[in-house]
């Protein structure tokens, strides 16, 4: 499918950044559209492009104006005009390279009580056994909408509506790194130990972010996450290797 480039509006958010906005509703179709456009832009960057941040309904391009404005192949005298022209040109490109190829990332998760701090509470809220909650949580596939909040934090969609859970009445001062949480229809994984009010159902031994890795963030927007339940023993084995 070709990204529909006519359905966006442009919002400059800085002299050095412009958002391509696709409506104001979270949807799988928009997520895929942003994902494809992101790939297309990164494969055919304009001069001065520094980075692109995908979010729920926006793709924000960061650039160096002094370089972009020197590119005479793009019509216009301002950065906005040149980017508008650039995006219009993208429509004429061969779109095959932007085919949707989501990476499936398997994330081991241990739901034992030491990690699933709020499983008991969720069990009573939803009138489901812990096993049923774990079943519902592991059978779904979770598309990554965006990375934000702290380095490597994925905003995941795809939660089974049965697990829609309120935030905790009082937030925890520290949620350990690797904790997997639910808040409303959102689910996410904490890369760093931070305060937070999400319901914690388990923990992954994987490092979600490591500045000294080739790709620091384990996940990127466009990936799809599958959780795989593991035992406490397996958690420890993986943890020791990962955090050595």
């Amino acid at each position, binding site marked *: 499918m070709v990204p529909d480039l006519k359905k966006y509006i442009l*919002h*400059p*958010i*800085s*002299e*050095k*950044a412009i*958002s391509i*906005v696709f409506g*104001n509703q*979270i949807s799988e179709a928009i997520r895929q559209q942003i994902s494809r456009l992101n790939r297309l832009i990164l494969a055919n960057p304009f001069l001065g492009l*520094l*980075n*692109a*941040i*995908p*979010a*729920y*309904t*926006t793709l*924000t391009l*960061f650039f160096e*104006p*002094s370089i972009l*404005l020197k590119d005479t192949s793009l019509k216009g005298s*301002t*950065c*906005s005009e040149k980017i508008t022209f650039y995006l219009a040109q993208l429509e004429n490109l061969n779109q095959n390279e932007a085919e949707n190829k989501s990476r499936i990332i398997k994330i081991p998760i241990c739901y034992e009580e030491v990690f699933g701090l709020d499983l008991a509470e969720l069990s009573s809220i939803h009138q489901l056994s812990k096993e049923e909650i774990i079943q519902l949580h592991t059978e779904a596939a979770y598309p990554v909408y*965006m*990375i*934000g*909040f*702290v*380095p*490597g*934090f994925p*905003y995941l969609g795809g939660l089974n509506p049965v697990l829609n859970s309120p935030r905790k009445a009082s937030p925890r001062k520290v949620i350990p790194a690797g904790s997997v949480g639910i808040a409303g229809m959102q689910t996410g994984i904490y890369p*760093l130990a931070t305060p937070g009010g999400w319901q914690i159902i388990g923990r992954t031994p994987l490092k979600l*972010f490591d*500045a*000294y890795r080739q*790709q*620091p*963030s384990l996940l*990127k*927007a466009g990936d799809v996450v599958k959780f795989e339940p593991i035992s406490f023993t397996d958690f420890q084995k993986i943890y020791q290797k990962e955090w050595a």
Partner: protein
Amino acid sequence: MGLKIIKPGLLSTIQDAGRTAYLDQAVAISGAMDQFSFSLANLLVGNDENEAVIEFTFGGIEILAQSDLLIAFVGAQEFITINEMSVPSHRPVFVPAQSTLKISHQNQGKFSYLAIAGGLDIPLVLESRSTFLTANFGGFKGRALQKGDELTTQESLSETSKNLLKKLKGTQVNFTNWSIPTHQFSAQTQFIRIIKGPELEWFDNLAIADFVSEPYQITDGNRMGVHLSGKLVQRKKSHLQELLSTAVVPGTIQVSGNGALILLMADCQTTGGYPRIGKVIEVDLPKCAQLKTGDQLQFEFISLKEAEKLYLERSKDLQKLKASVQFKSME
């Protein structure tokens, strides 16, 4: 070759121009809070304008030069002494080995920058030498400088640095008779130019009129952002929806649920969910960085086109300055 931190002051970190290569992985831009003073400090010692420097917060700083150094100090109003002798800022200064440099805060400003010819020998992490405190990486061991930390300088010097050093080097502290103009500090309300934010129309017209006619006061802040107190900015009744998290940048002015303003700074998150009423233009962001608790500012809208023009002029001014330092070093 290097220096030793004797007193680190409130918050001293290694910073450069910042990192943009990992924004999509939610790694903050970071970098010097006052990018203008930071660039000037580097240019004054003949460095590339993006070389890593030490950023200080207020005064209370003491540093021991462990070798001969060529330095420049630019930023907040500070009182600088080397071996108890007063030394002017905004110019290249030769510091002989074993000298003690002390920095104490005067009245205005908050952040200042110490550039050392050759730059600091700090490893690149994710393409930058800036310290990112939230995630504890970059800069000196991913943290603020502490008493006893020793920083080494890079050996290779630019031609400009070599020439400046040739002119100033001796057994005593020495500095040029020329300096460069920098921030004009005053206790008055600072006018800060902004461009409109994507959610500007979510706000009530009268509220927007107040937003640009009333002063706001800095209540508290850190490297991530500052809170402003003043008239709350109310939304139109028809625009009370939540904003889906989207990109924000240093300079973004967010309006929280109750109408209070938050101005995002260098270490801000890469995405946010509060409506963005405006964004401080790049060339005025250094002025905002220098405002301390209790200082006042007043916003003023300009067009994006004008902001872009001012940004390009600033880059050209820095290039001119680079050339003039080069020229003066050869005179």
